[in-house]
């Protein structure tokens, strides 16, 4: 037996160790269940999981990757808070300090930046996975809606964080972004005034974005992630195809006789993994699930560190309200939106995104087909998948155009040709 394991086993058998961990490293199936149930961190997960849920080719681990990215963002974000001051006079200098003076400051800021970019990307991928496997259908409709909320929160977090370095990139992306908000009917101008704490992007706006970025939005996201995960369990774990022998019919709570008392187990819903399932389909979460989760965490950390070490987060010149960079571009995930806005601010900035979000929220309630859950690209879902794919391709195309094919004055450029230098016209 290796030495660390021996020390661990000795410790968990001492009085102190037992008071903390209750179950040491599990040796039997009973202990494998107990270790999951008795630990605060592990009890969020079931003691036994369906084999289908463990298949990497089904879930691709996207939700878990997002959770890890979020954790990396919290830790690196808190570290950055120890230096950062939300002041228009100091913020930019502190960014320079983080790059050149603070030990590991550059890598930690880079990690925060890349994890944030990856989080937006993986929210989109996660949404695609859930759509193409039909996983948003009953009883998981509301969890999809919470997911859309988390998507918006991710964008909000990213957008508010974008201003904090107080460089040119930050200043103009936020100027453009908040002006789009100003186009919203009726409440638009008031919303913009409230968001900026004034008419222009200045100290008040920086203070407000800071408060939103470090406390308001992360707390909201944390709360909604908790509900999202809790509902995954309550809705019967990951979606999977119906198997023979499953109790497909759900026991609705209201159908039970009301004139008797029930134990908690009797009130559990009929779709939980344990009910009506073959025991052969289930494996113990310890070690099968826990091991995979740790492995995936290592992978995510490795990728984020790799990106952070080899590619620096951008930092342009100090914010200058006089000279917008030409072209002034929003973050990449908003460039599809900016491309639309270049045709019409109201239609592109308010109507199209508004309709898209509404459609996403209502989707699980509009699509009543029960078939094709738990399989990628199910034949029964050809129509829904086609519509979704068309929207996706349009969104990607607009983003690619905005990112690569738009140059000075938002004119057309081809990415393989360097655009001519712009001379200031003033």
């Amino acid at each position, binding site marked *: 037996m290796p030495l660390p394991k021996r020390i661990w086993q000795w410790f968990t058998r001492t009085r102190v160790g037992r008071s903390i961990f209750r179950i040491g490293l599990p040796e039997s199936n009973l202990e494998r269940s107990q270790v999951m149930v008795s630990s605060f961190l592990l009890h969020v997960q079931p003691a036994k999981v369906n084999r289908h849920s463990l298949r990497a080719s089904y879930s691709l681990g996207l939700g878990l990757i997002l959770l890890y990215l979020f954790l990396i963002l919290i830790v690196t974000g808190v570290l950055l808070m120890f230096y950062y001051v939300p002041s228009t006079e100091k913020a930019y200098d502190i960014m320079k300090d983080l790059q050149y003076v603070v030990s590991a400051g550059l890598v930690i800021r880079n990690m925060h930046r890349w994890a944030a970019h990856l989080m937006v990307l993986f929210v989109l991928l996660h949404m695609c996975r859930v759509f193409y496997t039909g996983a948003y259908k009953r009883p998981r409709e509301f969890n999809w809606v919470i997911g859309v909320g988390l998507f918006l929160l991710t964008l909000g977090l990213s957008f508010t964080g974008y201003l904090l370095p107080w460089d040119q990139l930050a200043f103009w992306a936020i100027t453009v972004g908040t002006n789009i908000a100003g186009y919203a009917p009726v409440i638009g101008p008031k919303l913009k005034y409230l968001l900026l704490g004034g008419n222009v992007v200045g100290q008040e706006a920086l203070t407000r974005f800071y408060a939103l970025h470090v406390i308001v939005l992360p707390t909201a996201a944390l709360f909604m992630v908790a509900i999202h995960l809790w509902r995954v369990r309550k809705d019967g774990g990951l979606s999977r195809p119906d198997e023979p022998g499953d109790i497909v019919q759900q026991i609705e709570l209201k159908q039970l006789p009301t004139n008797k008392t029930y134990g908690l187990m009797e009130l559990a819903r009929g779709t939980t993994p344990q009910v009506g399932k073959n025991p052969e389909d289930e494996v113990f979460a310890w070690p099968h699930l826990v091991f995979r989760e740790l492995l995936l965490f290592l992978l995510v950390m490795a990728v984020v560190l790799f990106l952070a070490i080899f590619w620096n987060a951008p930092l342009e010149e100090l914010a200058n309200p006089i000279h*917008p960079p030409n072209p002034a571009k929003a973050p990449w995930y908003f460039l599809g939106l900016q491309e639309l806005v270049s045709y019409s*601010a109201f239609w592109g900035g308010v109507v199209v995104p508004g309709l898209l979000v509404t459609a996403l929220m209502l989707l699980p309630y509009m699509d009543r087909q029960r078939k094709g859950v738990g399989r990628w690209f199910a034949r029964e879902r050809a129509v829904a998948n086609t519509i979704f794919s068309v929207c996706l391709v349009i969104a990607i195309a607009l983003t690619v155009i905005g990112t690569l094919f738009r140059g000075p004055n938002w004119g057309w450029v081809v990415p393989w040709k360097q655009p001519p230098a712009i001379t200031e016209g003033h």
Partner: protein
Amino acid sequence: MNHSPSENKSEVSRRSFFQLTLGWLASTFAVAASAAGAVRFLVPNVLYEPSLRFKAGKPDDYPDGSVTFMEAERVFLVRQGNTFRCLSAICTHLGCTVNRADHGYHCPCHGSVFDDQGAVKSGPAPRGLEWFQVTLSKDNRLLVDKNQRVAADKYLIL
């Protein structure tokens, strides 16, 4: 809850009346008033922004036929002969600062083009650039008031 048998069932009982008024209405009011107070708290009463009324120097500082960009105020001061006008440099589309071109103005963010009169020639801008009132102060300085919007053909003639 034993009510006297003679009590009329359709009448609102004292208990449900108090539940409605003191319970539900008061709770709703408390929540709504707190929310309204919080939102009002977030609306600033004082802005520490540059003043919208500013002096732009002596009329002779600007040569005839010149268009001068004033950085801090983000406006162009336009002189033609003995006439003076002031044009906003903030694009009406999404608030970028426009650049002076050979003829008119270009917005670098989304490609709006304005002519010399500030009217939209092309691009997504919904309106032309704003013109601001220019007057002469008592000490013979040009006085621009960005609160006062005027038509493109309104000049200060000296």
